[in-house]
């Protein structure tokens, strides 16, 4: 086994373990902390694929900003096992079925897709480097990129508008 493979398996085990802990841990704060670990493990995978920019941006945006806000809200609301409302049996059952359906769709999508069969080259390839990424974003996919940025801007303005209405 090469060192890349060792890292790959280590990171995969870490990511899966923490992802399971996100769902199963009782305290919401613990769930969030495990989710942060998941993001770090995924960033590690990106680095193995030589996509450094993606890895760092994943940490800055998800682990550094979004999760801080999650933690912020959970800490303010002081959620814990006691204050959690009792869940209806029927709702739990419905959740199980819909989650299972989603899982099936994912499995079939992954096994049927063409790109799943040719595995990404580890450590090699320089597509993820920032220069190539910028080139393809601002040359090949310029219009979708700009449209998505307008979408984000409108989401931001929408949040401000909703916030203003409350007060």
């Amino acid at each position, binding site marked *: 086994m090469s*060192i890349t493979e*060792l890292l790959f398996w280590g990171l995969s085990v870490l990511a899966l373990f923490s992802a399971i802990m996100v769902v199963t841990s009782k305290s919401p704060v613990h769930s969030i*902390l495990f989710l942060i670990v998941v993001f770090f493990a995924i960033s590690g995978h990106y680095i193995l694929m030589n996509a450094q920019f993606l890895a760092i941006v994943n*940490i800055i945006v998800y682990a*550094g900003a979004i999760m*801080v*806000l999650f*933690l*912020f809200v959970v*800490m303010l609301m002081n959620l814990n096992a006691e204050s959690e409302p009792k869940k209806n049996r029927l709702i739990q059952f419905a959740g199980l079925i819909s989650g299972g359906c989603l899982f099936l769709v994912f499995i079939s999508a992954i096994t049927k897709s063409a790109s799943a069969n040719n595995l990404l080259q580890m450590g090699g390839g320089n597509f993820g480097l920032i220069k190539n990424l910028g080139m393809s974003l601002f040359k090949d996919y310029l219009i979708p990129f700009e449209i998505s940025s307008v979408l984000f801007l409108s989401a931001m303005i929408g949040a401000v508008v909703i916030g203003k209405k409350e007060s």
Partner: protein
Amino acid sequence: MLLAIDLAFIIEKLVLIVIVVMASLVIAMYATYGERKIAAILQDRRGPNRAGPFGILQPVADGLKLFFKEEIIPDFSSKFLFILGPSMAMLTAIMAGAVVPWGNQIHFFNRDISLQIADVNVGILFVFAVVSMGVYGIMIGSWASNNKYSLMGGLRAASQIISYELAMGISLIALLMVTGTLSLKEMVVQQQTGYWNIFYQPLGFLIFLICAFAECNRTPFDLAEAENELIGGYHTEYSSMKLGFYLFAEYINMFVSSVIMATLFFGGYDIPFLNEANYDQNWMALFGLMALMTKVVCFIFLFMWVRWTIPRFRYDQLMNLGWRVLIPLALFNMLLTGALILFKQNNWHF
């Protein structure tokens, strides 16, 4: 063949890592001494002068005192998170030193050794990521304390850091447009041959400096530990070396952000008015390191000078400054920089 790695390379990097971590700890230690001396001078006092000549052993005495103090963990807190908090604060504070170029290459044992732990090509983004992770130490610790004042301090720290990170990021974008690279090493090389970036980005530097003060939780932005409203702020419940870690992490953060500012805007290890290529490589690396440290000491002095001169902001003033002043200014700076670069590239004249 399992794990084929160049052994000399590993040793070289390990030695570098140990040196950088030890150096940041020692510098942070003596920054506490410097802070007390500067405060004393500004307030017309003598400052610490009992332990050793000029009180030079004071930080050692303080450290020993913290180690021997009784360790108290509150009853209703999550023990693991309570210990994780200060550890995270310390870890994230030290990590940013990994991508800083401390000097040029040195030639030793027939090897060219670069005085930088990792020259990743997204260096500045790495620093940014580590800085944004720094708030977790404070948030986790404050929540695990199970104390309302601590929690208030932690929430203040989080909202402050998120607000100022935006302006900091935008001011960095303007700098990146000028340099065209994300690698800290390349930025320094560019500044060695050309002018320092401060001349291209004066407004960007000012915004970055203010945000650095806010990210380090230093006065006038130390709302998270405002002792007259929050008892002690986020570390109210902490004692012994865990408290020491929080206080220490602040000084390491100050050191690291001084290094980053010196590297980004003031040429890093560049010695002004001197062409390094004409002299011996090893000596120049040493002098370059000394030049970097001189710049860093100036910045640390600035941090302390401001702390003992300017009073703390009120919370609404802090948020207004971040959102209504710094972010529009940073956006304006970015637009201006982009427009100038565009004019220059296309040779447009007015």
